[in-house]
Every structure is written in structure tokens, then in C-alpha cells.
């Protein structure tokens, strides 16, 4: 279970203060698949970063009762100047996994072939998504944080994600930020709508989508 209690987050720059989240209380249970809805800049990525421990809340507390992946998104998690395989080796080291196992899975899942020996900064966003997913799936987290990225892949990648993430790992929790209502309706059983620094949890995804579309 992940509990966010009374979280606020504000960014300040040059004396200006911008509140992003204010008084957010959430509980995410084991096996929950939570969709995250909100307009651009509403704070979806911020909430994911806070839950992932990448940034710290200005006040409030986050308690993680299960292993949580790093936020899988367009940025972060990789060192651009290193090759895909060097990144895999680094991640295997810090998560204490066998590099050989991780590498086998990454080669099979990403189908990137020789490209894995090139620096990650030369990758397209689709290729980064493949690598990030492959690594986090190989490590086997109990809760996955996914920031928009799932929809950038091609058909083949999306099919693989579906089998690996949504069919084989149904017992895992997931928090997915996405602008695609169809995707969320199909795969999530709960949804959070973020609007004007408030986050509201809905047990009915359809209701959340209606609320989001009315914004």
C-alpha cells in the first residue's frame, strides 16, 4: 500500500511561488491500477515524481509499503552518454540483480539489437520507452509508475507491454498518467483527476473521465 498524507508541493523560482499540489490525500492498494487525469501542467508528473521519491514534497508524507519503480517517462533514469547496455549494467548493480538475466530480458523485449551498444542520447523516444520498460519489468517491481510514455511505442511494442504488464503481471499495482480516456477505461480500475492543485480519487473510471472531459 502507498499512502500520501496531506501532501503539498510548490515550486519557487526567483521569489515567485507556484503551488502545484495542495492537501493531497491518497491511498493506493496492492493490485490497484490507477489512471491519472489532468490537463497539461495540472501536476500529474509532479505527483508521480513525488510518489517515486524523485522529488520531495514541500510538506506532508508518503509511505511506501511496496517496492515502487522509478517513474517511467521521457526523461530520467538513464545516463545519456552511456550505451543502453551500460545503463542496464548500472541498473542491475544498484538494484542488486544479475546483469546476465537483465541483459537477456532487455535484448529480447526491446528488439533493439546493435542499437543497445549506442549511447542512449541517440535513441528516439520510442526506443527509450522500450528500454525503460524492459529494465523495470526485468527488475519486477510491485508498483509501476508510468508517465505518459506507454502511448509512444509502435503497435508491436504496445502489444508486448500489454502481455507483459497487463496480463502476466495482473497482481501488480500501477499508476499511469495518460491523456487517452480509452486506454484508462480499458486498463484501470480507479482514476485520479488533478485539477487546481486538488487530487480526487474515483472508484469508477468512467465517472473520472466524464469529470476530466468537463474541465
Amino acid at each position, binding site marked *: 500500500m502507498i499512502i500520501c498524507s496531506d501532501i503539498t508541493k510548490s515550486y519557487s523560482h526567483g521569489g515567485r511561488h507556484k503551488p502545484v499540489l495542495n492537501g493531497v490525500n491518497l491511498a493506493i492498494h496492492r493490485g490497484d491500477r490507477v489512471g491519472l487525469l489532468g490537463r497539461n501542467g495540472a501536476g500529474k508528473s509532479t505527483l508521480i515524481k513525488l510518489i517515486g*521519491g524523485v522529488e520531495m514534497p*514541500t510538506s506532508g508524507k508518503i509511505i511506501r509499503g511496496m517496492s*515502487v519503480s522509478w517513474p517511467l517517462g521521457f526523461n530520467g*533514469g538513464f*545516463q545519456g552518454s*552511456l550505451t543502453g547496455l551500460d545503463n542496464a549494467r548500472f541498473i542491475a548493480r*544498484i538494484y542488486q540483480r544479475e546483469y546476465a538475466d537483465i541483459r537477456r530480458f532487455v535484448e529480447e523485449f526491446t528488439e533493439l539489437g546493435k542499437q543497445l551498444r549506442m549511447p542512449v542520447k541517440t535513441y528516439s523516444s520510442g526506443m527509450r520507452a522500450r528500454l525503460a520498460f524492459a529494465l523495470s519489468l526485468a527488475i519486477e517491481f510491485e508498483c509501476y509508475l508510468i508517465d505518459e510514455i506507454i502511448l509512444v511505442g509502435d503497435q508491436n511494442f504496445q502489444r508486448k507491454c500489454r502481455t507483459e504488464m497487463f496480463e502476466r503481471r495482473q497482481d501488480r499495482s500501477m499508476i499511469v498518467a495518460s491523456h487517452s480516456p480509452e486506454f484508462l477505461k480499458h486498463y484501470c480500475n480507479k482514476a485520479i483527476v488533478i485539477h487546481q492543485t486538488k487530487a480526487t480519487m474515483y472508484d469508477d473510471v468512467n465517472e473520472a473521465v466524464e469529470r476530466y472531459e468537463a474541465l
Partner: protein
Amino acid sequence: MAKSSLHRLRNSWAVQLRVIHALMIRELITRFGRENIGFLWVMAEPLLFAGLVGLLWHFTHGSTEHGVGVIAFVATGYIPITLFRHGVARSVAVFTVNQSLLYHRQIKIVDFILSRFIIEFLGGMMAYLFMAVVLIGFGEFPIPSDLGLLIAGWLLYSLFCLSVCLIIAPLSEMSEAMEKFIPVTTYIMIPFSGLFYMVSWMTPGARDFLLLSPFVNGMEMMRKGIWGDQVTAYYNIWNPIICSAIAILMGLILCRRVRRKLTIE
């Protein structure tokens, strides 16, 4: 309860060791690549610096000064100061440069500073050893009379360097102006680093003043360890220990404050 928290501490310690190890390997690959001599480059710069300046002094000041070999004297001064200057330079903006790695929760910002510093520290030690062996071969360097004192001096000097890095790194994130002051500060530092002199060559007034610097205390220990009875050294081991402890405490507090506010792309 006490047992479980001890267990947790041991686990976390193991995680941090693993992270620092991984960060060091990553740093070595990105900085030196896998071609030619690879990570041995880490000792190239301190060696070149110490060697060339030593030679320069050899020709301008003669081969000995106050009864000790000039090349060895300059070299033993330059390698520690290179550790300090490199350590500080590598600490500036270290969090921003590595921010994408903060996506992994087990990596703490202090790990960035530690992993970079350990590389400089090992590089400095390798350079020291290499230089001493070569110079001993040429008869320009004495066999250290007290190896323990030399190592203790090096460790205290390094500890203080590390504690300064722990302060510089968060400060450089807090204000951009800091960054501009660092080169000139490390330059001004040189006279207070014990690089070109033994304190015993100074007047008593200057001596007391210079011995306030933790660097000078560490340097005196190292030189006493090398030349033994040939030189008179003044030092107090508590000066670098106390200064480092205070600086480390301040640095860790600053790191914690900066981490809370760090914005990561």
C-alpha cells in the same frame, strides 16, 4: 526494536556501498572511456603537475632547500593540493549534472559527492606512490622515515578536502554566484595549504597563524613522515579532525536542505 533498526542500518549501508561502487564505475567509463590506459588517466594530471613544477623549481631554486630535495618537496606539496582543487571542481553542480540518476530512489545526493571524491582520492594516492617509487629510483626522494605518519597526514588532509566538497556541492546549487568565486578561492587557498614551505621556516607569529589551517597541519604530518629527523614539523592532529567534523556536519545539513528543494527534469 533495537535489533531491527540495526538490521535496517546494515541493509541501508550495503545499498549505499553498492550504489557508490556502481557510480564510481559509471564515472570512470564516462570520464576516461575504455580506450588506451583508461582510468589510469586519473593519476596523470597530479603527476604531470607535480613533476613539471618540481623540475621548474629544481632549475630555479637549486636542488635542495633547507636541506631537503626540491623536486620531492614540491611534488609532495602538489599532489595533495591537486586532490583539493579537483575535488572542489568536481563537486560544483554535481547534483544538476547527475539529476537523471536521482530517479532511482536508492541513490542519494551525497553518493555523487562521495563517488567522485573517492576517485580523486585513489588517483592522488596512486600518483603519490608512482612518483615516490620513480623518484626513489633516481635518488631524489628519501625512503619515508615514518610511513604511518605520512598516511595519517594524507588521510586527515583528504578528510578535510571531502568535508569542504560536502559544503561546496550544495552551495553551488543554491546560488550561481558561488560558482564564479570558486576558482579564485582555490587559488587564494594555495598559500594556506602548506605547499611551498615548512612552518618551521616561518617566524613564530606567522607559524601560529598558518597552523590554524587544517591543510597545513596535514601537510606537516606528511612531510614529517617522509623526512623524519631532517625537518622540524609543527602540527596538531585535532585541528583537521575538529574542522572536518564541523564542516561535514554543516555540509550534510546543507545537502539535506537542498535535496528537499531540488527540481528534477
